[in-house]
């Protein structure tokens, strides 16, 4: 008794696939590739629903603290998905608010392996720190992060397969204090 959603991406994959929910867990399979990404029901701890570039994202928190992200859900999928998660895994699909104000000021916050930028308590974006190739502090008030391979590479690797524009660097201006951006230092909370 599996329920299927079509045209779903696995994270930032270029490939679309089918996403299924059943009492045993969740699974995603790309239309062109062989492997299956499976999330057994026992591993599922929480689920979030948020607006991203490719429509809506289902974010699933796992027992080992990893997260799986599935993009491409329609707004109308929310209720169906919420019911499925409740009935199959006993978890609530939490709605996470995203910022669309268009401001360039907010608060940076380290959340696990990601740096989140929030505007008026809403998430504007998150950056995975594992792709930071270099970082630099200039004049005590400017912090830059350089990224390498932030966008996943594609099979074939031809130029036409280039998925999107690739962020290579972001610079923050941190007036007054650097404590917020130093939040990841050992010993601090």
């Amino acid at each position, binding site marked *: 008794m599996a329920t299927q959603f079509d045209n779903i991406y696995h994270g930032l994959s270029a490939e679309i696939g089918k996403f299924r929910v059943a009492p045993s867990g969740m699974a995603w399979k790309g239309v062109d590739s062989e492997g299956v990404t499976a999330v057994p029901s026992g591993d599922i701890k929480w689920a979030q629903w948020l607006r*991203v570039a490719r*429509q809506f994202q289902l974010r699933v928190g796992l027992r080992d603290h990893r997260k799986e992200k599935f993009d491409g859900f329609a707004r109308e999928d929310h209720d169906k998905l919420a019911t499925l998660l409740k009935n199959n895994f006993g978890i609530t699909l939490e709605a996470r608010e995203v910022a669309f104000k268009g401001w360039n000021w907010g608060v940076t916050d380290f959340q696990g392996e990601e740096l989140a930028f929030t505007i008026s308590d809403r998430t504007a974006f998150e950056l995975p720190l594992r792709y930071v190739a270099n970082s630099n502090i200039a004049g005590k008030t400017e912090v830059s992060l350089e990224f390498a391979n932030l966008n996943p590479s594609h099979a074939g690797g031809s130029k036409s397969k280039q998925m999107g524009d690739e962020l290579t660097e972001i610079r923050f201006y941190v007036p*007054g204090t650097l404590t917020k951006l130093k939040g990841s230092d050992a010993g601090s909370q």
Partner: protein
Amino acid sequence: GASGKEGKGWKKFQSYKGEGALPPEVERLRIFVDRKAQTVILPIHGFAVPFHINTIKNASKNDEGDFTYLRINFQTPGQLAGKKEDTPFEDPDATFIRSVSYRSPDGHRLDNIVKQINDLKKEANKREQQKKEMAD
């Protein structure tokens, strides 16, 4: 609602009221200039992140090897250039995004985006100037 109200040295502005107003083009995970909303939407690790033209100082590009690099500089406090009253500044403890850089093998498209951003900025500056003249 509160748009157009004069705050402490900055005028309130907003790109979109909610996610439903995002243009469908954001799905392509490419930089998109939404002229109607006076907004540049950047793809940042799967998110579609709008930046109102008021937050943007300028855009430029340069070619390096097989790639074209696009850089967008934002308005931030503590810069020598630019008039202070034009700086969006709501929370003195905030962290500001000062610049972003992108790369793409498609130089023509980035050329076009730089032009669109700078045209949008010119229009916004012009409107601002006209408003000031009307107020005098």
